[in-house]
């Protein structure tokens, strides 16, 4: 007879499908197991060991992200032993590299290490601090790599290789000298990197940050507004992070199709145009070959008058309207309604053919 697929976590029985890890079953049932390196839909690496749990009968603590659930397995996710192990891991992370300047780090408030340190109430500095071996890299337009904060958790490597499949970065120089490198350890600018920024989004700490992060508000200080990317037809779901009436950052929405957090360089970084000083601010009317500013009343009046006059003289079909693949459905609807119901012509098209 087959054993039933039941696992006991913290005294509760849960069903599982063979092959599922302890972590997957726990998360599905809202049992919190803290993780740092774990990434949904990527191969679990068990690198950070934050997710250790007690499995009855096992000699040591097990990483919940890699151990498959088994029939009648009995698991505890919190205990003194577990807390001690997790504390140790967090302390080691805090002392490897520079994690004492949270006050001026762009990732503050949006940092997994900070969150865990708080949860387990750990102050930096119990172990001697190890100096970072690698200098900060900022010689590209989009991404700062601050190696002094890198935990070598590998999330960025997975994001680049398994999610975006750009294969631009990997682990290099194993052991204590571990560094996330491009092929030949060149700068990102001269690598296969296409600046999709997936790695920034998944980095749990401030080791990867947007180039202009220091000039912008921190994500935790912004209000997030859900929207859709304005560039291509994929329609990636985004969060616009807003402060002081300005979009400070754009990130991918992890909880929605089609992109589940992914974006490309345009969608993530190409929003300078919103606040560009060249934006048109007021209606303009051309007089003697040059534009002058006008009030809305005057401009609208002029447009209405000229369109009416041309229609009266040459007929409705002497007018044409180009609507746009850039504006909203509602606006397209109103534009074609205007052409058809007000101007009385079907001369309405947009530039999709181009």
């Amino acid at each position, binding site marked *: 007879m087959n054993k039933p697929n039941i696992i006991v976590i913290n005294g509760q029985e849960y069903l599982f499908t063979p092959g599922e890890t302890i972590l997957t079953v726990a998360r599905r049932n809202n049992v919190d197991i803290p993780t740092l390196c774990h990434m949904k839909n990527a191969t679990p690496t068990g690198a950070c060991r934050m997710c250790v749990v007690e499995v009855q009968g096992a000699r040591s603590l097990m990483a919940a992200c890699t151990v498959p659930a088994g029939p009648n397995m009995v698991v505890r996710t919190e205990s003194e032993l577990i807390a001690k192990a997790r504390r140790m891991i967090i302390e080691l992370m805090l002392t490897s590299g520079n994690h004492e300047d949270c006050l001026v780090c762009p990732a503050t408030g949006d940092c997994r290490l900070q969150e865990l340190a708080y949860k387990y109430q750990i102050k930096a500095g119990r172990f001697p601090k190890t100096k970072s071996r690698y200098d900060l890299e900022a010689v590209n*337009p989009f991404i700062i790599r601050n190696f002094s904060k890198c935990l070598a958790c590998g999330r960025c490597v997975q994001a680049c290789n*398994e999610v975006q499949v750009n294969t631009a970065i990997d682990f290099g120089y194993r052991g204590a000298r571990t560094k996330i490198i491009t092929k030949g350890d060149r700068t990102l600018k001269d690598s296969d990197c*296409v600046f999709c920024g997936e790695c920034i989004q998944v980095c749990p700490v401030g080791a990867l940050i947007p*180039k202009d992060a220091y000039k912008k508000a921190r994500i935790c200080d912004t209000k997030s*507004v*859900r*929207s*859709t990317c*304005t560039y*291509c*037809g994929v*329609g990636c779901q985004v969060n*616009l992070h807003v402060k002081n009436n300005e*979009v400070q950052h754009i990130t991918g929405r992890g909880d*929605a199709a*089609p992109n589940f957090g992914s974006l*490309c360089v*345009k*969608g993530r970084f*190409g*929003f*300078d*145009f*919103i606040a*560009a000083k060249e*934006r048109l*601010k007021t209606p303009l009317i051309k007089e003697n070959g040059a534009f002058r500013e006008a009030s*809305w009343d005057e401009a*609208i009046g002029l447009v209405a008058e000229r*369109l*009416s006059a041309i229609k009266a003289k040459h007929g409705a*079909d*002497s*007018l*044409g309207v*180009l*609507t*746009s693949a850039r*504006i*909203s*459905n*509602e*606006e*397209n*609807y*109103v*534009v*074609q*309604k205007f*052409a*058809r*119901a007000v101007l*009385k012509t079907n*001369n*309405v*098209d*947009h*530039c999709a*053919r*181009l």
Partner: protein
Amino acid sequence: MTNPIADMEKAEVILLTGTNTTENHPVIAAYIKRAVQFKGTKLIVVDPRRIKMAAFAEQWLRPYPGTDVAWLNGLMHVIIKENLHDKEFIANRCEDFEALAKSVEAFTPEYVQNLTGIPAQDLIQAARLYAGAKVASIVYCMGITQHVSGTDNVKALANLAMLCGHLGVEGGGVNPLRGQNNVQGACDMGGLPNVFTGYQPVTDGANVKKMEEAWQVTGLSTKVGLTVTEMIPKAHSGEIKALYIVGENPLISDADVNHVEKSIAHLDFLVVQDIFMTETAQMAHVVLPSLCFAEKDGTFSNTERKVQRIRKAVDGPGSAKTDWEIICAISRKMGYAMNYASSREIFEEIARVTPSYGGITYERIEHEGLHWPCPTKDHPGTKILHTAQFTRGKGKFHAIAFVPPAEKTDAEYPLILTTGRVLYHYHTGTMTRKSEGLNERAPECFIEMAKADAEKYGVKAGAVATIASRRGEIKAKVKISETAVAGTVFLPFHFVEASANKLTNAALDPISKIPEFKVCAVKVLA
């Protein structure tokens, strides 16, 4: 798209053609790369350029530009000859199979090799791969449609999918990738000269009556209007007197811009409504400032027919207004009371007059969008089209004849030019070129060519060369690249100062009226 984006990871085989996916639709490219890398999907790339996706392909076929119908007919020839077609699907769901079979009879692999340069053996192998898969998806983009034969190309792709029964199933389908964010929506909303919203023909009396009632007007025109590619020449000849252009920059994006500029200069009156002073806006009599996506509420419909929300996050600059507020104000001034309180109210009207959007409400898409058709409030939306039957009932096979590209190379203009986009810029560059970062990665126009061609025509990498066609000439920096194949050169069209469309050919596809951007004959001089 007939199928949702997420389906790509479920395809056994993907046939990718006319799309430089990693540059133009990077997030979809990631789906395809993941499918190949981790799900065992086999990729066939058909493209004259050695695009990045070719590195992920089981097979890369390299046709001469403009010969798509030939290789597609060739694939179908092989499939029918080797008896690999889906007889059950054809019998139950399609009609006119015999006509198709007859039309592809002449397209033997050897004949196709002559026309396209694709080795006969490769064509046979690709045919077996696509037809032999349980589910296979076709993914294409402007590389297929921007030809004089664009409509034929699309029909030929549909023929191929129907022939193998790869339609109406998860992981299958014929999937065009839309270039601009809301091309799908602009079409759905009736931003076309022949249809109201939801593709309801303006020539059908019942539709006209319905709209007249909904809009409370009389005398709607029942005559199909002009396309953009017809309006521009008619502006030149004087039949079109005034143009109202919203959020478009035809002065860069249009084929043969020299002619466009002259045509627009002929207008009695030009209104341009945009967020920037574009090249087209410079020529306007009145320019009206509008708001961008981050400054307004509304919806976009993406390439998989999913209607998704945008939300106001910041206030716009100065006194700029939403496009709909501006149009409503003009309508009122012209004596028609167009009054809406919000984009939501407009959307409710859209749902009332558009059967395929009938069941969509802002409430329902608050968290995640819905795929149309979604006719009723309790309808879950339609992720996959044509699961039980085609829109017209039976799927019709169309016999498609091969028409070579309108313009040929000759001794004076020996190279074929194709145009397109690069990753770091978007369309005419009005928005992306405001970003220092994007500009730093892609600062200027370049002509991409193979090493052999550069040597042959005596131009050096990094030097500025002159590129001339029968219509005009521009200058651009030479970039010698593995991507290019000898005989074909590539220019991106984002750059005002070296507008690729000064060279391109305005010859139109007779049905879709799409100009032939992808093929024109040029010469390159040092």
